[in-house]
């Protein structure tokens, strides 16, 4: 016994043993000792585990058990464990797919009334699931509130109060909240299920939206906000991510409502916009810190900023006064945010894209966003004026009610299917193409004639005729391409360039040539086709420089998606020029070489 007493391992070795820090051989030794020594076993019991062991346990807790193994964790434990801090500051950072770490709280999975079907998405507020009412077979969306947001009793009360208020809102442009429920420790919200995607996603997929479509979405959202305002509600977190748009104009489930809402079918292609998350911004906007004693106002403000930033994402859409004091925000802050959203829909960018959250807050208070005109030119001045007023820094300078915005935007929500192209442009384009055919015929005629008569002509004359015919071909190619580009409503600059080259330069060159060689042969009739085209080309140039034509081209280029088509137009024009230039060059060369022997040295005498 005394021998064994002496060989008790020291406490630090026992600790290392318990934590798995010893070498394998040492473990054997200690196990051997333990088998005979109860007191060391007692000591081992007292040793606390370290962070590593805790991490091993956590690794198995927060994630659903791996395939095949039985769940070893009681459901209550999952709920107690605060969910991993999911994305918050990151729109577009979605919860991982089926295998992801966000799992359904057990209480919700066994909910008596709702059968959860799938995870729709997750944001700073929490995960959203599609579910079906077990009895009514009504499809709803369940939003499980991030437990961190409803950790305190006051937060829970505020949540319930806000949701009750939001549940009073019934409007086709607002996602209806049916119910706020509690299942075990998790709070969730039962909402109308909207089949569709949010506007951030729409823009991510399609790029900046056509003016009329963007205006119509904002107009609809404004109608929803108006309804909220009339019921004393403020949203406080209007952003593209919170505006759902249904897949079709029928609005999924409520066709009669929709007819009433949009005042006829202004924009038959677009869906119905529905505002999400009414009443939820209050959870994030009022940080707990503000309820504590205020030691330093500055500190408080800073923490409220960072906290709001952490919970609500970057303040890309936040009104200046809202960033200063969230509680002072009224409907006019929503109007500002809606303005930022309109800016985003039109440009694909938030008003102040660069910098940190703090930089953005400062920019919202002090700077003007980049001019939309610089980013796209087809936005009517009227829309820009509305946007400017929505984005006014001082609330009193903005629209005072969303209804005023809806009214102001209404005229811009109608569009024709195609941007209107002035009739004159179409005619000019057609005439250019006809003229090109005419010029090409002349050129071909000259070539044919030369082919048979070359022997009877002097080398110089022959070559000049070749050149004139070649220039005709080049001219024909240029104006044909220009006309084609105009008909395609693309490559306005390329078309103007081609017309300038063809319509002014080529007749000029030919005239100089003909005048210089006047003595030898009356060739001027040959260039009549070129000169006939000049007024047509000047007219076309004037048309192209008109601002409405300009706007039409710009709109079409933007609609057709990218610069690619414009570049294709330029490429086409360059290829044409190269081909026709090549024909002229080769023709001259070939003729030169084949007629060499019969020119009897006249070649050098009178160079052209």
């Amino acid at each position, binding site marked *: 016994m005394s021998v064994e007493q002496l060989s008790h391992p020291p406490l630090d070795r026992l600790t290392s043993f318990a934590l798995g820090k010893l070498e*394998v051989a040492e*473990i054997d030794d200690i196990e051997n000792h333990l088998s005979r020594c109860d007191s060391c076993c007692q000591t081992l019991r007292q040793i606390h585990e370290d962070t*590593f062991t805790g991490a*091993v346990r956590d*690794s198995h807790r927060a994630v659903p058990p*791996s395939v095949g193994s039985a769940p070893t964790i009681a459901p209550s434990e999952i709920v107690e464990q605060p969910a991993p*801090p999911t994305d918050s500051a990151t729109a577009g950072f979605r919860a991982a797919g089926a295998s992801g770490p966000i799992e359904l709280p057990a209480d919700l999975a066994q909910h008596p009334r709702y059968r959860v079907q799938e995870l729709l998405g997750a944001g700073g507020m929490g995960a959203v699931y599609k579910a079906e009412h077990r009895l009514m077979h009504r499809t709803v969306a369940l939003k499980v509130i991030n437990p961190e947001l409803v950790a305190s009793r006051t937060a829970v009360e505020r949540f319930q109060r806000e949701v009750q208020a939001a549940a009073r809102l019934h409007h086709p442009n607002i996602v209806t909240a049916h119910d706020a429920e509690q299942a075990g420790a998790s709070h969730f919200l039962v909402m109308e299920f909207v089949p569709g995607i949010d506007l951030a996603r729409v*823009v991510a997929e399609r*790029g900046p939206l056509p003016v009329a479509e963007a205006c119509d979405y904002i107009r609809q959202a404004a109608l929803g906000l108006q309804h909220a305002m009339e019921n004393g509600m403020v949203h406080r977190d209007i952003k593209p991510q919170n505006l759902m748009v249904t897949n079709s104009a029928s609005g999924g489930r409520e066709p009669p409502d929709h007819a009433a809402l949009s005042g006829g079918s202004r924009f038959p292609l677009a869906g119905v916009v529905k505002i999400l998350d009414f009443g939820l911004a209050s959870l994030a906007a009022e940080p707990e810190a503000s309820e504590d004693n205020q030691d330093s106002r500055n500190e408080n403000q800073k923490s409220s900023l960072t906290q709001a930033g952490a919970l609500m994402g970057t303040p890309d859409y936040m009104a200046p006064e809202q960033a200063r004091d969230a509680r002072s925000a009224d409907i006019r802050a929503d109007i500002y945010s809606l303005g930022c959203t309109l800016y985003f829909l039109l440009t694909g960018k938030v008003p102040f*894209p660069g910098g940190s959250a703090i930089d953005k807050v400062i920019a919202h208070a002090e700077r003007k966003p980049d001019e939309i005109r610089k980013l796209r030119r087809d936005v009517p001045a009227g829309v820009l004026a509305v946007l400017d007023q929505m984005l006014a820094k001082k609330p009193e300078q903005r629209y005072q009610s969303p209804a005023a915005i809806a009214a102001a935007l209404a005229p811009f929500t109608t569009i024709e299917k195609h941007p209107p192209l002035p009739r004159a442009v179409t005619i000019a384009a057609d005439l250019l193409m006809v003229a090109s055919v005419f010029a090409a015929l002349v050129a071909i005629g000259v070539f044919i004639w030369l082919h048979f008569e070359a022997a009877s002509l002097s080398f110089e004359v022959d070559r000049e005729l070749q050149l004139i015919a070649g220039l005709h071909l080049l001219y024909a190619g240029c104006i044909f391409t220009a006309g084609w580009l105009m008909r395609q409503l693309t490559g306005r600059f390329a078309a103007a360039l081609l017309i300038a080259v063809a319509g002014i330069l080529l007749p000029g060159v030919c005239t100089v040539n003909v005048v210089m060689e006047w003595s030898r042969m009356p060739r001027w009739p040959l260039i009549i086709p070129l000169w006939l085209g000049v007024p047509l080309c000047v007219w076309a140039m004037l048309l192209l420089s008109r601002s409405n034509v300009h706007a039409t081209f710009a709109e079409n280029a933007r609609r057709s998606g990218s610069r690619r088509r414009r570049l294709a137009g330029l490429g086409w024009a360059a290829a044409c020029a190269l081909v026709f230039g090549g024909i002229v060059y080769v023709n001259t060369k070939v003729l030169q070489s084949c007629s060499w022997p019969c020119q009897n040295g006249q070649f050098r005498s009178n160079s052209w």
Partner: protein
Amino acid sequence: MSETSLSLLDQLCFRPDAAAWDRLVRVYTPLLQAWLRRYDVLSAADVDDLVQEVLLTVSQEVGRFNHNQAPGAFRGWLRAILINRLRHFWRGRDHRPAAIGGSDFLEQLDLLQDDASQVSRLWDSEHDRQLMRRLLDEIQPRFAVSTWQAFCRQVLDGDAAERVAEELGMPLHSVYAAKSRVLKALRSAGAGLLS
């Protein structure tokens, strides 16, 4: 001991063969996949490509990773590689409207790059959790079923050793030793990777 008893990091550094690569892929693919799937600008194919790229970079550059750093350095290093590959991917991508979705995406990358942000803390915890799970899966076959059970009951379920011994019908010292051995194996497999 067998090859797999080398820590993954050491195996990558000092014996970079096909087995090391397989092990790296096995351990880190789930983490990277789960992480990348969250970016909705990435398609499934993009995710697979990026995972491959990141792991390749890791295997090529791991020799230059300084071993003697604070715990947790590896996950930061891996995060830096991930950000790098994502930025590279984003630059090289033919994304039609240049700015769309891009500013969001780049903002997320900035957040991920910021050591103090919530996102990078999320990365840290996901890394540790996933790595731990994979390493557990990896070492499990090396232990007898009873040893493994004793370990799970104590560490994963938090049961007292006496109770585990009683219910599994094992001597108390074996229960303690089981926990110690598995933890030891886990520590050495993840040496340098885990904090």
